């Protein structure tokens, strides 16, 4: 007799787990769009898009609360263990990161409106555009890795975060140079700085999400570890998933 | 489904009527069976009681008789031997001759036959106990003959009695009117052994014999039965041999009891030379018969002890013997005792095997020990039921009442014992 280990005895349990995962993915989709819209808003200076991003921030917050509630319900009702427990914990943490990403996106949108008032926003355009595209890719990469239990994909995201951090550092240097050259630009530069900072934070959160993927799949907590450590953990033998 | 118009609820309602009727019917059968059983019991008890209660009273002739020392040839210093040889019978005959003045030898003989042969024993015993009665006129209640007893208790005034003629009935009527003839409680029935004379026959010999026989049975079967039950249930390995033993014990319980009698005759009497007709051999035979009952009920009682108790004791490091004697046996004992008492009650009523080992003999003396010849109650009943005298019929029923009384007492004891001991857990 071959048993199907993918199914719980309790069908409702399956459905509940499925639901938090889907809701998280839905929230992820929304947050990803928020971020790409915010980036779009900076690049195009379109305040309507920025406005839209700020308005939808509420939606993201509500989703976080709802999904968190669902996770609590599962913990209370099912006392999940092992992979189920990790799934619930990971979803709960990922949702938190997604909400923060949402916050950062709305921050970007707010600053965009201030920058666009100033009209001359060509400072660091290149860096912002490039980093923005990168973090949007990271978010979707992290969510994909989560959906597919793909450790490799998750490690890629962590690697990309390293790149974003480097770009952030060089953009920062660029900004400092501007400010030293022309103290009048300091006000605008600070705005740009905030935006860059927000994008960099989004990258960090995307990295957090991919760390949860590793936790979900491998059971090891790689938060606050270096990239090399994470790569090692990802290589380590995964819990046996096929029985002999 | 073509007829889906009917809802489930309606279908259930519809079937309820049939189900209720079935239930009602079944209850009626049950009540009828119980009533039938009760009726049988009532008829049985009614019959026995109506026939048997009169056995507990005895007709006596109250008269004052002078113990004429000269006629008896005794004086105050006469020894027991002399008293036993003295002619009390003649004295009684003389007394009645003086009283009624019979006409001729035939009438005299008819007169004498109204008094029991036991009357002279009565007087003799009185004198044996107290020599000072000699020469005195004393009030005695002389035992009447069984025919007189029957006439006075049953036939007087409304039935013909074939054993007595007109003259005799005339005298008796006269005595009855004078108040000489009366009934009193029949002590002799309980203190005498068996006798050819119904008015003198008693059940003491049979009761003592029964008691001794059951004592032997109990002393042998209880320890053996309990030991066998414990061994089979707790210690014996479960294999072909124990299975075989088990089956045979169960078979033994179903063997007709007369077979045990034959076995007893062949083995105990013919091979081992145990004296026949004794409580000892009776007890041995009844032991064979009750053992299976005790073993089976004992095993059931042991099985009923929850295994968790055994495990608990074993888990604490008790040895198997300790488990049995500290835990299993105390808990199983009420059940074992109940089984034993029921087995003993069975043995109490058993006749067939005892017939085979000679306990059917006519034994007058009350047995004093297990090696004295004796009889038992059910055999006594069997013997009396065979006797032609009318008075024995009522004594048969009387003895049955006593036997039933013992059975009821034993069964009640079993129930009470179980209740009392079971309350502890």
């Amino acid at each position: 007799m071959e048993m199907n280990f993918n199914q719980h005895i309790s069908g409702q349990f399956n459905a509940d787990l499925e639901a938090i995962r889907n809701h998280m993915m839905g929230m992820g989709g929304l947050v990803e769009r928020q971020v790409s819209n915010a980036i779009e808003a900076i690049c195009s200076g379109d305040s309507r898009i920025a406005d839209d991003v700020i308005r939808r921030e509420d939606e993201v917050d509500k989703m976080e609360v709802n999904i968190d509630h669902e996770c609590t319900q599962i913990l209370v009702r099912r006392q999940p263990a092992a992979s189920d427990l990790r799934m619930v914990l990971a979803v709960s943490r990922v949702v938190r990161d997604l909400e923060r990403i949402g916050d950062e996106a709305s921050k970007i949108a707010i600053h965009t409106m201030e920058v666009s008032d100033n009209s001359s926003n060509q400072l660091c355009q290149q860096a912002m555009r490039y980093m923005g595209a990168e973090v949007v890719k990271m978010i979707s990469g992290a969510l994909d890795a989560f959906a597919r239990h793909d450790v490799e994909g998750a490690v890629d995201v962590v690697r990309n975060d390293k790149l974003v951090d480097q770009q952030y550092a060089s953009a920062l240097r660029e900004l400092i140079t501007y400010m030293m050259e022309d103290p009048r630009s300091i006000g605008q530069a600070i705005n740009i700085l905030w935006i860059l900072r927000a994008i960099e934070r989004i990258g960090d959160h995307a990295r957090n999400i991919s760390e949860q993927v590793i936790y979900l799949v491998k059971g090891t907590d790689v938060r606050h570890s270096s990239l090399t450590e994470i790569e090692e953990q990802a290589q380590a033998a995964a819990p046996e998933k096929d029985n002999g | 489904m073509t007829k889906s118009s009917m809802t489930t609820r309606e279908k259930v309602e519809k079937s309820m009527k049939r189900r209720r009727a079935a239930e009602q019917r079944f209850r009626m059968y049950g009540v009828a069976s119980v009533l039938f059983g009760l009726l049988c019991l009532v008829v049985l008890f009614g019959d026995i009681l109506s026939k048997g209660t009169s056995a507990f009273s005895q007709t006596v002739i109250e008269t004052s008789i002078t113990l004429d020392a000269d006629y008896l040839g005794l004086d105050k210093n006469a020894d027991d031997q002399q008293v036993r040889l003295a002619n009390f019978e003649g004295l009684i005959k003389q007394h009645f001759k003086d009283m009624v003045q019979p006409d001729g030898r035939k009438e005299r003989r008819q007169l004498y036959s109204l008094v029991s042969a036991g009357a002279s024993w009565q007087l003799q015993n009185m004198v044996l106990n107290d020599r000072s009665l000699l020469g005195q006129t004393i009030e005695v209640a002389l035992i009447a003959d069984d025919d007189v007893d029957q006439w006075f208790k049953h036939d007087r005034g409304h039935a013909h009695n074939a054993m007595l003629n007109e003259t005799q009935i005339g005298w008796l009527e006269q005595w009855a009117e004078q108040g000489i003839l009366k009934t009193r409680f029949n002590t002799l029935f309980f203190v005498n052994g068996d006798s050819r004379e119904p008015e003198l026959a008693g059940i003491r010999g049979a009761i003592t014999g029964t008691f001794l026989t059951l004592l032997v049975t109990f002393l042998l079967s209880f320890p053996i039965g309990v030991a066998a039950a414990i061994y089979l249930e707790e210690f014996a390995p479960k294999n072909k041999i124990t299975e075989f033993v088990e089956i045979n014990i169960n078979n033994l319980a179903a063997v007709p009891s007369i077979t045990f009698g034959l076995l007893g005759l062949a083995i105990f009497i013919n091979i081992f030379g145990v004296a026949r007709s004794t409580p000892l051999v009776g007890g041995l035979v009844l032991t064979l018969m009750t053992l299976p009952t005790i073993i089976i009920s004992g095993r059931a009682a042991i099985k009923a002890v929850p295994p968790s108790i055994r495990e608990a004791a074993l888990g604490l490091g008790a040895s198997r013997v300790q488990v049995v004697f500290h835990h299993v046996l105390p808990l199983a004992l009420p059940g074992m005792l109940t089984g034993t008492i029921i087995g003993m009650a069975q043995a109490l009523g058993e006749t067939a095997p005892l017939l085979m080992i000679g306990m059917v003999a006519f034994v007058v003396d009350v047995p004093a020990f297990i090696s004295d010849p004796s009889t038992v109650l059910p055999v006594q009943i069997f013997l009396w039921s065979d006797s032609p005298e009318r008075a024995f019929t009522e004594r048969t029923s009387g003895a049955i009442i006593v036997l039933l009384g013992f059975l009821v007492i034993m069964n009640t004891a079993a129930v009470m014992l179980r209740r009392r001991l079971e309350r502890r857990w």
Partner: protein
Amino acid sequence: MSIIENHTTNGQPFCKDPKLTARGVGVFYGEKQAIFDVSLDIGANEVIALIGPSGCGKSTFLRCLNRMNDTIDICRVTGAIELDGEDIYDPKVDVVPLRARVGMVFQKPNPFPKSIYDNIAYGPRIHGLAQSRVELDEIVEKSLQRAGLWNEVKDRLHAPGTGLSGGQQQRLCIARTIAVDPEVILMDEPCSALDPIATAKIEELIDELRENYTIAIVTHSMQQAARVSQRTAYFHLGQLIEVNPTDQVFTTPEHALTEAYITGRFG
């Protein structure tokens, strides 16, 4: 599903300071094999939980540890089980002192139909642990105190033990086991007949007992295993699939079967 061929237990079945060691233990009921090649250490002063679906052999294995299986005629045990390095299945070993060293608490509370006092005193009496009445009184009091029952029953020591509530009865049984001062206590689903509050009390008690005793507990409640034990062993169809520290088993089990069982995918 069937027996896994050439299975070796995942995780850490052995430990540094073992009290009981089982090596290659197999159990047969007549022709039928109930346990296959189980090797497991039970460390001193640890609580090890044996979990697994019904009929997986965890209770059978537990009962091997104090030779309770001896009472079943057709039961045969192979392999070696050592208590402090002594083979308990050595023909020279007497089960009576062994069971005094390795006590057992059963699924259903099973106090003797005697007084509370006599329940506790029974073990010390048969093993001659007390020289005097005073000493026996002390043992009874100490055992009841350790089992957390003393305050509840001290005024009615001579009332029947069967008159206590289910949870109290089970603690009485634990006290009775402690009274003979065992080194190892085996518990066979000790809380399965109890309500949650009584269960919590027993679990608390197990935690306290760990200081002085080595405890192996069979349980159907995975939460209970997670709460009371330091190591957890997962049995499946008579095989020991995985042994690991409890927190690891319940977050990241190594073997897929363990995972499937503890997440409620079968069992």
